[in-house]
Each structure stands twice: as C-alpha cells, then as structure tokens.
C-alpha cells in the first residue's frame, strides 16, 4: 500500500450534484443504450459515466461527513473498472432522481459503518460490468476477440495489433452494448486501487472555506430563522408575547411551530436569534416537568432488580448452577450516561416552497429522511421534493435517525410567502438540549471463577431504552433491543454457562444513534468486568483474555497484534500503567491498549494509545487511520467529561463550556495497527471507539486501584493532564 501523497491541483474532482433530468441513467440490469448526459458523457450504467476526454465519473450515493466514503466507495468501482484514478471524478447521486427511479442506487442512508461493507458487492459489480462493456465495444471496433483485450490504468489495449485507447473513445459504443448477465470480480490479490491511501476528495475545499455545508446555503431573497423548542421533552407552548420582538430591526415573522416551539424569522440570523431570546414563552411541561437524573437512575436501578427480563438468544448451559459451584463469584454494576452528539455544525435546514416543487438543503446522513420529513410536514408528494447534497459538518448519528430540524424548517417555510427560501439554524444550546441522546444504560454482571482461574458462569442484566422503539415505534425482537445489547450478544470468550437478559427501560428523553451505538458503552462494562475477573484470578488481563479466546481466532489475532505493539509482555517504565481491551463491532475486530500515569491529584497523563483494527478487506488505509485517531478522541472526551443530565425535565448541559470535549493539549500519542486479513468486509467509522473506553479505564485501575464503574471520570476525582 502506498502512502498518501497529494497534489490536489492535478486532480479533477468536481463535486456537483447531477442535474435532474440531465440524462436518463441506465440501471445495471436494464438493456444498455447509448445516452449522452448533459456534459457529453455516456452513462455506461447508473454508477459509471465516461466522457470523450476519458474522464470517468463515478456516482456516490451515500453522504460524506468526514468519514471518507466519498473517496473509498468509488475506489471499489474504479478498481474493477481498471480506471486511472487520476481521471476519476466523483459526483453525488441526485436524491429526487433516486426516488423517481425506484431507489436505483440502493441505500443512501449513511449509518452503522455500512457504506463499504453493505455496498461493496454492487459497487464492484458496477465497475466490472462497465469494464466488460468497454471491452466488448473495443473488440467490436477492432475486430478482435474480447479475451485478447487488456484493460489497465484507464487504457484499453490489444497486444496482437498494438492498438491502444483511452476509455473515452469507446464510451458511447460501450453504453450501447448489452449489459453482461454476470461478471467475475477480481481476486483481491489483483486489486490496485482498493487498498491504496488515495487522498480524500472532499479535503481540498475544506482548507479554503469553499466547502458548502447545510448552514452555508445562500439563496436570493433568503430569510433566516432561529428556533426555541420546549425545554422539557414532550412539552408544548402555552403562550408567548411577540410584540417586542416584532418591532426589532429586521424581524419579519414570529410563529409557533408544531405547538412545541417558537421561531423568529428575520433578514439576518443574528437579528432573528436576538429577537427570539427576548421573547418570554410560557411552556406546559405535560407531565415531565419534575423528572430529574436521580429519578431516572432509580428507574434503571429497579430494572436491574426486576425479577424478569427478556432473554437473550445466546444463553447456554446453566449459569446459576455454574456460579453456585464456582470458587469465587464477582458481581458489579456499571453505568453509562446519556450523551449528546454535538457535531461542530449545529442542526439546521433551508427550505423553499414553490407550487410545483419543494427544495431542501441540509447536512444529513439520510437524504431520503429529509424528503420524508418534508412530505410528512407539508403533505406533498415525494416526487416533488428536491433534497440537495452538501457536506455534513459532522454527523455521528445525529443526522441519521431523525431529521427533526428539516420538519421545523418546512413548517416555518409554510408560514412565509410562497417561494421564500428560509434557513433555519439552531443555536448550540438548542443542539445540546434537543438532541436524540445516546441511551443511558446500566449493567449488572456476575461472573464465577473455577479453581483453574477459568470463567465458570456468567450473568448479565442490561437495562436500557430502545432507540428504534422510541423514535419510530419499531417493536423489539423477543423483548430485546439488539443495538443496546450489542457486545453481549456474542462473547469472544469461551464461557459454556452464560445467561443474559434485557430490561427495556424507557424515559421521556429522546434517544438516538450515537457514534458506535451500543458498542460505545457495553464494552465499558464487559471489558472491565473481564479485567475484574482476571484480577480476582490473579492473572494478567491480556493472557487471561487469550486463554478464553481459543475458539475466536479473529478476536485473538487483533488482540495479539495490539499487545505486541505496546510490548505488553515487557514491563512499562516505572510509574506507567497499562490497560487493554478487545471488541468485535460492526463486522470488524478492534483492540486497544493504553499507557498512562496518574498523579496524586488524580491528573491522568495518557502516554500512548495503541488502536488496532482488522477490517478484513481494507479500502483506504490512511482514512482508516484517521477514523481510529478520531474515535480515540471521541471516546476519551466521553470518558472524562461526557454526560447529559436532567433537572425538572430539562437538559442541564447547554454548550461546550459544560459539555467538554478534548482539546489539542490533551491529545495523546496514538499509534494504529491496521490489519487486513481478508475474507470479510468490516466497518470503519464506528468500531475504533469500542475498545478505547475499557482499555483506558483498565489502565486507570492498574495505576490507582480504583475501578471506575460509572461515567464520566470527572465525578471520580480524575482530570486529564
């Protein structure tokens, strides 16, 4: 794999949305037919367009928010096409065209580290199919057999006759070829674009201010809105006095939205927001106005004590009997709080309503979700809604599950004169206090050890809300929410007698998918409890894990690589302590080891973090490294300071001064271990975080003897040096 080298001026990435109706794109399985697109290129299939000057345009259906798949997904197509990456241009799939074409481009939603692992097959097929059509066209023209034609690095050639051509000359003829019934994908050994650290195509505009995010949309005649939603979830607006606000400079309209919010529209966002802050609003809390974090904790505690809960499918043997026979039995409770996403770009959306079409611009992980929100808010047909593609200023799950901000923007636009574009932008306070939060969860774990120091008997009770049940009414499967339970549904450790159950514990707090979802919190309990058992057995936590992993080769492999990288079997320098953990999230295998020291005042100095991942196949290693680096920062911020708390039904945290994130001075040294053992396609964006939290806390235990079973660490007297 070559290291990333950059020469942005040589590249011709043009990040534009396809023009609607600019050319009928052909489905892969429809008969081929030459179609000249707006810029003179030919659509070989819906993913690949080639222009006469050899420019290869590859379509990208998902969303870019910094995770890098706008680059890595097209690498899959380009490799099978044998394109020259320097001639590749990447273009977003138009959302309206996608909907009108029966969602021909597959999933657009960008969640769950799914882009590569769930679309790799059809993307590689698209590249291979287009290549076959180019070869067929060249064979026809040159009067030779297709088997004698070679394609390499954007050049089609025939050795016998010495003929040679770029793709462009055969683009139109290729588009007229029949679509192959089947194609043979390359052996991974023959990949030359997959596995290379090509620079991310969306980076150049991020360094000169030209990157367009949802909040950057500017349209003629635009007006600007700020919104204040009821501080208590489920509450409504009783009354408000807008008279003073209406008289302020620039204010155009004051309105209530959905009975639970007030919005001010002005000729400038600052004027709108300033007027809004002066409006005194009377709220009805509708029954949730007394709820505090203490109440919620008591509810969860009751869930741990509840006599019955829903059984998990991986139970086996007789855990109670095994625990009764054990030499030692340990029991511990773990707690992880609500957390907000807090992407740097606050929520917002621009909507313009015309009689024949509704346009929406918003940073999103779910372009079709934007359309659905507009359809539901305004009662229009989805074919008439045009969602425009922009870069998202961070997503982390906030912009994937719910597109609530799109609904608000649509309802504001509906109260303005037809054709008026309105840009809704939330304050950071609204963003922090009206999120869909990472679920709060509690875990009660019980484990036995036999006389050989082997785990004999394991019980886990998980108490958590359910994101999909609460957000969309999706019923639980046999009473278990599998995103909340992930990490406990398949242990990498051999424990014949295990029993785990799940107690659904709803609250009035909205829940959402937060980067790494259940895997952001279950390893905090599972991997620390494994450490507790190792300590009780008098064994080294790494070797204790290994001896229970004989049957899980892939988990063992990444754990060994990380242990080797940190030099686990050689003692660290005096005063430095280590922790280690392993996880198996999102189809990948990840492990981490942390070295730290703690002074008498509880200030933690992280000396280094080793982050390891095995993704099976790996498309863009440098991007994987970047994701692991970022995931470490994400996990340590949550560990040290992350919590969303409630008093009188309201979120108490409001902005970055009381919802702390890690800064440069606190950034540890990170070393990454990238493994691509082949055989499977694992996720990248989310898995990196999973082992960091427990490895960090295991190291804190090693250093201090304090086992941290509830987060954040700031409540246990720890700070970050």
């Amino acid at each position, binding site marked *: 794999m070559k290291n*990333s080298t*950059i020469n*942005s001026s040589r590249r011709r990435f043009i990040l534009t949305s396809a023009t609607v109706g600019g050319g009928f794109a052909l489905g892969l399985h429809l008969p081929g037919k030459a179609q000249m697109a707006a810029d003179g290129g030919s659509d070989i299939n819906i993913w690949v367009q080639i222009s006469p000057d050899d420019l290869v345009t590859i379509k990208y259906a998902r969303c870019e*928010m*910094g*995770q890098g798949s706008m680059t890595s997904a097209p690498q899959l197509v380009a490799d099978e096409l044998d394109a020259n990456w320097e001639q590749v241009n990447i273009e977003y799939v138009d959302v309206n065209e996608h909907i009108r074409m029966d969602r021909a481009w597959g999933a657009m939603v960008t969640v769950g580290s799914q882009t590569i692992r769930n679309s790799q097959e059809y993307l590689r097929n698209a590249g291979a199919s287009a290549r076959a059509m180019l070869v067929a066209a060249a064979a026809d023209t040159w009067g030779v057999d297709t088997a004698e034609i070679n394609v390499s690095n954007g050049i089609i050639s025939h050795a016998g006759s010495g003929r040679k051509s770029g793709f462009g000359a055969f683009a139109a003829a290729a588009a007229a070829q029949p679509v192959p019934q089947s194609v043979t994908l390359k052996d991974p050994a023959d990949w030359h674009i997959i596995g290379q650290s090509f*620079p*991310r195509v969306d*980076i*150049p*505009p*991020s*360094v*000169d*201010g*030209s990157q*367009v*995010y949802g*909040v*950057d949309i*500017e349209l003629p005649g635009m007006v*600007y809105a700020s919104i204040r939603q009821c501080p208590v979830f489920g509450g409504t607006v009783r009354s408000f006095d807008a008279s003073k606000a209406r008289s302020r*400079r620039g204010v155009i309209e004051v309105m209530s939205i959905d009975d639970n919010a007030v919005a001010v529209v002005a000729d*400038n*966002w*600052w*004027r709108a927001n300033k007027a809004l802050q002066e409006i005194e609003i009377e709220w009805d809390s509708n029954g949730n106005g007394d709820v505090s974090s203490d109440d919620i904790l008591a509810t969860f505690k009751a869930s741990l004590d509840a006599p019955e809960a829903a059984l998990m499918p991986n139970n086996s043997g007789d855990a109670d009997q095994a625990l009764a026979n054990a030499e030692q039995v340990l029991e511990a409770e773990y707690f992880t709080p609500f957390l907000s996403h*807090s992407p*740097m*770009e*606050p929520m917002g959306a621009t909507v313009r309503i015309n009689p024949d079409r509704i346009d929406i611009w918003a940073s999103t992980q779910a372009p079709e979700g934007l359309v659905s929100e507009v359809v539901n808010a305004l009662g229009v047909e989805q074919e008439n809604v045009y969602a425009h593609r922009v*870069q998202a*200023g*961070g997503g*982390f799950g906030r912009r994937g599950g719910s597109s609530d901000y799109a609904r608000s923007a649509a309802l504001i636009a509906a109260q303005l004169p037809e054709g008026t574009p309105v840009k809704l*932008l939330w*304050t*950071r306070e609204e963003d922090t206090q009206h999120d869909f939060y990472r679920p709060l969860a509690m875990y009660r774990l019980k484990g036995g050890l036999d006389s050989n120091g082997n785990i004999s008997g394991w019980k886990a009770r998980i108490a958590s809300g359910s994101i999909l049940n609460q957000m969309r009414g999706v019923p639980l499967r046999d009473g278990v929410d599998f995103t909340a339970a992930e990490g406990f549904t398949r242990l990498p450790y051999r424990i014949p007698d295990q029993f785990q159950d799940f107690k659904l514990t709803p609250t009035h707090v909205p829940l959402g998918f937060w980067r790494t979802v259940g895997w952001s919190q279950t390893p905090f309990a599972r991997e620390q409890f494994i450490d507790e058992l190792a300590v009780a057995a008098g064994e080294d936590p790494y070797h204790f894990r290994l001896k229970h992993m004989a049957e899980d080769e892939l988990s063992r492999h990444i754990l060994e690589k990380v242990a080797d990288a940190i030099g686990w079997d050689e003692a*660290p*320098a005096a005063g*430095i302590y280590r922790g280690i953990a392993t996880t198996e999230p999102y189809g990948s295998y990840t492990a981490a080891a942390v070295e730290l020291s703690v002074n008498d005042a509880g200030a933690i100095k992280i*000396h280094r973090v080793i982050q390891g991942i095995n993704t099976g196949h790996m498309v863009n290693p*440098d991007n994987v490294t*970047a994701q692991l*680096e*970022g995931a*470490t*920062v*994400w996990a340590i911020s949550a560990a040290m300071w992350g919590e969303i708390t409630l008093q009188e039904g309201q979120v108490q945290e409001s*902005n*970055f*001064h009381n919802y702390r994130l*890690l*800064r*440069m*001075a606190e*950034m540890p*040294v*990170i*070393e990454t271990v990238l493994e691509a053992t082949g055989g499977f396609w694992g996720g990248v964006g989310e898995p990196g975080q999973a082992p960091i939290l427990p490895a960090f806390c295991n190291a804190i235990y090693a250093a201090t003897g304090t086992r941290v079973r509830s987060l954040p660490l700031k409540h246990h007297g720890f700070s970050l040096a």
Partner: protein
Amino acid sequence: MELQINNETHEVDVEADMPLLWVLRDIMNLKGTKFGCGISQCGACTVHIDGEPVRSCSFPVAAAAGKAITTIEGLSADASHPVQQAWVKHQVPQCGYCQSGQIMTAVSLLAKKPQPSDADINAAMTNLCRCGTYKRIRDAIHDVAGNNPENTLAYEA
C-alpha cells in the same frame, strides 16, 4: 460603518453590537467562517484582526472597524498558503467544519513563532474538533515550521 475585509473596503449598515461573524456570513456572504457555539468556546469562527486570531462570534463588529479583517477566503486566492497545503498533505480535515478556524489560528501561531514547540501548539491551538483531527493538525503545523520530526510529540515513557 466601514470594514476592511480581505484587503477590500466595504460599507455595511449594521448594529454596532452585531458580532463580526454574522456580518461576515449573512451580510458579506463569506461562508468559510463558521458558527459553532456563539460563546468563544470552539473557535470555528476564528478570523484575523490585524493579524491576531479573534473569535468572531463574540466580537462586536464596531470593534473591528478600521482594522484589517482577514478570513479564510483572504488567506490565499488558490489555497496555496503553506498552512493550507500542509493541511491537504497531512489529510487533516474530516468533516472540515472547524478547519477554517483551525487554519486561521495556526497561521497566526506560525507568524509569531515560526518554529513552535509542542507546548506552543498546545497553548495556541485551543479550537475544538469533534472529529478529533488534533494529531494531524499538530503534524501539519510542525511540517510548515520545518521542525525536525524529533520535535514532534512523541511517545515518552
């Protein structure tokens, strides 16, 4: 009032207490400078006033009158500033939203201290990045400075 933005003079009719950020974004349509928090915590709104990094979300426009305001758009015409080039070379941005502010802060640091130490970087670079690109920001700053790689933050046992 009259503002000097990126070496051009502009006349704007705005309230004296309007933060510079909103004049830049909504009046001047310079969208490279970002809103992140509104309370000087995150630094996404960082611009230069007479070369000094300033968090424009909390800086009243009247205080900027008569001074040289530089935004990310004014750093170079073609992304050729060495800091911008280093940001691409080291593949710093992820979502990119905070990076205008990060770059403006780094440019100011390097102007004052052409060869900053890690401690200098820690002290100056207080901007938040939710994606967690700090390691690459540090690498890029050291690269621009021509610092010996041994000066970069390294594992200290």
